[in-house]
Every structure is written in structure tokens, then in C-alpha cells.
């Protein structure tokens, strides 16, 4: 039966399922589902610790946001451990992390954001024309609609009006942010 677990074809699927559940919040991917779909011949009492081991390895890799050198060192250590993984399994895990790392990291970042996240921005510019009784001549205005929301919640919308003066003020603030980012990136 151990040979069944060592086979690598279903391991890739298992890692996908684990990632869906652990990082992307898909609770429909259960242990039972993974077992019946990927390792139906393996008795549950053998499958359970195997799943836990793979889950632990994947979580360690994701938590440390391992680069490829760290990954190789980590997986090599796992192959040398008592009750660790095989060289073939290490190769499957390595391949999986390389192709899913960005998506998993993005999910982890989203989970750590508890405030509103920006989801959309749309805008138009209106040219206000003179009306018969109003004093203003031609004051163009920009209408900006921001879409934002908390993770997993519906979007909120905010509609803002800016004249040229206001826009300049905002741009000044935004350029301060950009300068700050530049400083941060240099220091990194």
C-alpha cells in the first residue's frame, strides 16, 4: 500500500487540492474528497498522516515564501528524514511550488488585508458650460468612481468630483507617495 502513496501522479492533484483549501479558502475540497478521488486504494489510516505530512510541507514552504534555493535545501532535508518524502515526491512538490507560488502568495496577502482593498477606478471629465444665470464660465470637472471592499465582501462605491485645483492637490500627494516608495525600494 505504501507504494500507492509513493506514486507521483496523484500527488500533484493532492497539492492543488491542499492549496485550494489552505490558501484559496475553498472548503469544499475535503480530506474525504481528496482520498476518494486521488488515492482510493489507500486505507484511510495511512492516507491521513500522509495528507498531514504534505499539508505541513506545503504550509512551511508558503509561510517562509521560499525562494528556489531555500526550497531545494528544505526538500532535500525532507528526503533525508525518517518518515520523510521520496526524491520523486520532492520533485513534484518543487514543480508545484514553482508554478503556484505567485497565486498562493497573492491569496496570503489578500488574507492579511483586513481593510478595504481597491477594486476599480473609473472616471470621466465633464466640461461644465455656462448657464444663463450662473457666473461660472467653463469649469471642467473630473468625476472619479472608486470601487473597493473588504475580502469576501461586496463592493462599495465612492463617487468623487474634482476640479483642476483639487486634482493638482491630489497629484501632489500622490507624488509624495511615489517618492516614498522609491526610498523604500532603494533601501530594500
Amino acid at each position, binding site marked *: 500500500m505504501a507504494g500507492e502513496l509513493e506514486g507521483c501522479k496523484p500527488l500533484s492533484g493532492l497539492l492543488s487540492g491542499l492549496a485550494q483549501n489552505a490558501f484559496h479558502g475553498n472548503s469544499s475540497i475535503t480530506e474525504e474528497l481528496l482520498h476518494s478521488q486521488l488515492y482510493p486504494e489507500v486505507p484511510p489510516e495511512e492516507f491521513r498522516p500522509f495528507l498531514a505530512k504534505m499539508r505541513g510541507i506545503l504550509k512551511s514552504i508558503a509561510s517562509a515564501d521560499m525562494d528556489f534555493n531555500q526550497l531545494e535545501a528544505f526538500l532535500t532535508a525532507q528526503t533525508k528524514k525518517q518518515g520523510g518524502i521520496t526524491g520523486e515526491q520532492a520533485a513534484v512538490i518543487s514543480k508545484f511550488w514553482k508554478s503556484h507560488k505567485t497565486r498562493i502568495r497573492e491569496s496570503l496577502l489578500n488574507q492579511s488585508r483586513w481593510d478595504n482593498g*481597491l477594486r476599480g477606478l473609473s472616471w470621466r471629465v465633464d466640461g461644465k458650460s455656462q448657464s444663463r444665470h450662473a457666473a461660472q464660465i467653463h469649469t471642467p470637472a473630473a468625476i472619479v468612481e472608486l470601487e473597493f471592499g473588504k475580502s469576501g465582501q461586496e463592493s*462599495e462605491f465612492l*463617487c468623487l468630483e474634482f476640479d483642476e485645483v483639487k486634482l493638482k*492637490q491630489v497629484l501632489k500627494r*500622490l507624488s509624495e*507617495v511615489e517618492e516614498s516608495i522609491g526610498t523604500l525600494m532603494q533601501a530594500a
Partner: protein
Amino acid sequence: MEESPFRERVLDAKSEVTCQLVDFQWKLGMAVSSDRCRSLKYPYVAVKLKVADPSGQVNTKSIEMTIPQFQNFYRQFKEIAAVIETV
């Protein structure tokens, strides 16, 4: 590669009222670690917008964005400023 690009589309005004921006605060933060990920290393821009609706009522909204999202946000505002000058 654009990381989480946010939607850019023709303004369709889902919000019912148009507000004025009263104040704009910003901060550049770095999320270092969390219970789910010990190595986050995630820089982000958070803006706090104080807005007044037509009745004069003031509200505050906080919005967070990634660095690429901020750069897109800034680019959009520069574009708006360029267009408004030509009107």
C-alpha cells in the same frame, strides 16, 4: 506582469451621490509577518479619504492597495489631469 489589475471601465456611476474630497492622508506600510505567513514582506499603500456628500456630511474611507495598484492609480490621475487641461 500586472499584479491584480483593478478594473478600468467607462464610468457608470454605481454610487448615487457625488462627493467632494475634503482631506487625503496616506501611508506606505510593510506587512512583515502574520499568523498565516511568517514571511509576508508585503509593501502596501493605504489612503484615508475624508469626503463630504452634497448635504455636507463628512465620512472617512480607508483603502489599501498594492504597489502596482498604486502606480496604476497614480497613472490614472495623471491621465485625468492631462485630459481636464484640454477641455
